[in-house]
């Protein structure tokens, strides 16, 4: 009986330790993810800012509803973001006994959203009697959720598969399967890191290359070439190999052929159409780091000016393109000029319009 109770306690203790470890792992993973990725559904900073502003407005002496919300975003504001902000503000005001109304007779409550270099400033202005009241709150721009990218209805299907605050040098599919795992080559705080993402886009493994003798570069470019469980990474002046099973054993060697000046991404990447097995060549635009880039897909034998060319605009400059092992898709690394994040898109040629 005693022994069974002890066993039960041990089992219970074992379960607690296991649960605690899992919880700790979860906390670390969440912290790491929070540092490296920003997800579009992380609305809490938005709600927190709206709550702060609503609290201050609700504290204005003599202010009574209903009020008519007038929303004035600045020119940096992305299309499609308005509805989300208006709705959140309405909810927060209503929660503080300040009902909103669209009636022309309701008192105006103007809310202005203005960006400064580091902050988003929300200003509420209204009148109470002959008195003008102003309430202002600010939030660091860095904590705001990224703007959701709109995809043009083109025959080039694309899907945002990963985004990071850190510079993404390259991305490669780790399997022939279209929905398989992904390898991502990051330049994180002047260190080279390879991530293995599972099919859900979550980080399954992180390998820090610790390349000794790698000179820091202002235009870091690299290429990731996975083959089975092995991965080859080509960097400026170095190339490294490792296996996912033994990530601590990274072998690097000097690589003369890949000079500092090499920075053009894989030109002439070819995709195969699933409809008729025709080949489409990807080409880029200019090299302006401040402009959105348009990728062109040209069918065999066509020129860039051909009407058959399919175009797709990315939210910033394209840094790299890597064709999948199957040839049916490619991964495009671009920088989003709206958010500053680096993004990986999967592109595929699809049949029809």
């Amino acid at each position, binding site marked *: 009986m005693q022994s069974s109770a002890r066993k039960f306690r041990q089992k219970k203790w074992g379960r607690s330790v296991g649960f605690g470890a899992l919880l700790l792992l979860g906390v670390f993973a969440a912290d790491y993810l929070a540092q490296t990725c920003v997800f579009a559904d992380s609305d809490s900073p938005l709600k927190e800012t709206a709550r702060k502003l609503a609290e201050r407005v609700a504290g204005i002496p003599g202010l009574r509803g209903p009020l008519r919300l007038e929303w004035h975003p600045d020119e940096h504001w992305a299309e499609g973001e308005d509805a989300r902000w208006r709705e959140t503000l309405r909810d927060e005001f209503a929660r503080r006994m300040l009902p909103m109304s669209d009636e022309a007779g309701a008192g105006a409550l103007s809310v202005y959203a203005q*960006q*400064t270099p580091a902050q*988003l*400033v929300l200003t509420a202005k209204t009148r109470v009697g002959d008195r003008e009241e102003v309430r*202002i709150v*600010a939030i660091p721009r*860095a904590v705001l959720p990224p703007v959701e990218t709109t995809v043009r209805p083109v025959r080039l299907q694309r899907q945002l598969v990963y985004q990071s605050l850190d510079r993404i040098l390259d991305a490669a599919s780790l399997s022939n399967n279209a929905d398989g795992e992904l390898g991502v080559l990051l330049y994180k705080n002047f260190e080279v890191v390879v991530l293995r993402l599972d099919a859900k886009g979550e980080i399954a493994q992180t390998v820090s290359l610790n390349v000794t003798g790698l000179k820091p570069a202002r*235009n870091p470019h690299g290429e990731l070439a996975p083959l089975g469980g092995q991965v080859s990474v080509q960097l400026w002046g170095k190339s490294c190999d490792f296996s996912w099973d033994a990530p601590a054993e990274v072998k690097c060697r000097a690589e003369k052929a890949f000079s500092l000046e090499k920075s053009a991404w894989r030109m002439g990447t070819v995709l195969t159409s699933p409809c008729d097995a025709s080949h489409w060549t990807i080409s*880029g*635009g200019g090299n302006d780091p401040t402009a959105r880039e348009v990728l062109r897909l040209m069918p065999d034998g066509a020129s860039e000016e051909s009407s058959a060319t399919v175009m797709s605009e990315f939210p910033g400059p394209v840094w790299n393109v890597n064709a999948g092992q199957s040839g049916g898709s490619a991964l495009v690394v671009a920088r989003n000029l709206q958010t500053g994040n680096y993004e990986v898109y999967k592109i595929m040629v699809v049949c029809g319009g």
Partner: protein
Amino acid sequence: MKSTKSWWFAAVSAAFLALPFGAVQAAPPRYGGALHVKLRAASVSLDPREWMPGSPAAADAGKLASLVYDRLVTLDDYGKFQPALATEWTHDASGKNWQFKLRLAVHFSDGSVLTPGDVIAALQATLGRGFEITGTENAVNVHAARPAPDLLEQLASGRNFVFRAQPDGTLLGTGPFFVADVVAAAPTEANPAAVKAARMKFQANENCWAGRPFVDVVEVTLGEPALRQLFDLQVGKADIAEIAPDLVRKGRQEGLRIWSSAPRTLVALKFDDALTAPASDDLREALWLALDRDTMANVLLQREAQPATTLLPQWLTGYAFLFESPMNLQRAKGLRADFSTGVVGAAQSLRLRVDAQGDLFKLVGERVAVNARQANLWVQLAMPSGANASTAAVGLRLFAWHYDSLSPRAELEAFVKQIAQGGDLPASATDPEQLFAQERRLLEERRILPLVFLPEYVGVRATVHNWNASAWGDWRLADVWLEPEGAGSAKTASGAQKDNSTTARNPGARP
């Protein structure tokens, strides 16, 4: 038929002309070459400790200092603070205690290693009182006497660079370049009456922790007249040059590539202390109402400036739009009518001295006098000249204030101390609503009357690539690369190589 042919010809010609632009291929960045930069300032001190907050000279110095020194953190165009000499940072809930973990194996241009002691010495001198900085093995702790939630904004801007002061007064930096040569302005041999401009030469730091810059050399010529700079850009003697606001239109008409920043300079009037007594309240209010800022910005400065009704610009605070244009000539005349005849500005004219250097500011001063006259106020321009110019009794001063900081609180505080001779702002001024209240209070005193905001204009040659300056005027020259040019470029590049042997003996920044 003739018409059809012409259209066809036109279409083919257009397609042919468009081809080189449409079919541009991504060219890799190129290392090498000399970047020629022309600035209007006649001299520049690279010692951040000597910079006067708000002075236009500090702005030019800041641009060159960022070639030589680094900061703990930088701010990118997306509102995110990026690690520089600090790789991580944390702060407590009060915002008073910050810790910055330093990047390992960062070297100064002479090869010595950056230590926490260097960071402490530099930042203690630039952040000034109110901050106590201590260090551990590979981190520095910043303790602020009052909450400093805007410390990252402060560290990412202004004079808060990290440097090491050498015993001989030279400053060393860890930045992408080091000072290779400084030549002071001197009379030319051919014509002793003419002055040869001062020059500074910055050599690429091969071992910069953030990567070698693309260009080999940045050659800076100081004190070039505005028109000469424009001409140098046109003939290829300059790659990057400041453009005076009144020459921007001319530059654009001549096809120059001109970049402009957010408004970086405030042009404003300040009443002398003698005129800040309550007896002069109506005079100050009348002039405030009489000033036609829209005409100054749009006509006088040809839309290259913005009317200013605040001390801090909209891009910095996000709330400046709340201050509306106060111009009301009728009310100004009404106030003037109530003046007694003995008041300055009524029968006796008010003397306006233009403290800011340059013809443009003189023009603005003349416009102030015109606006005042429209309200029956008498303002007389008194240009500073002669030995006793600065001590001569005047009533109004026209000055220029250059924005240095990315923290609106720090900027307003510096402005208040320097211009309004005030003290620290309350600790609560880090809250934008409190800052707005402080600024409104200052404006309501009518001692300082904002006139216009001026952006910074820079001409950039087409051969300069990756010009990606920040809206607040950080030029980021280490990331710029040059398109190869025939023999001219090769000659310059070889010249730079030749100079290597002499420059290596003279690293760092000479204050």
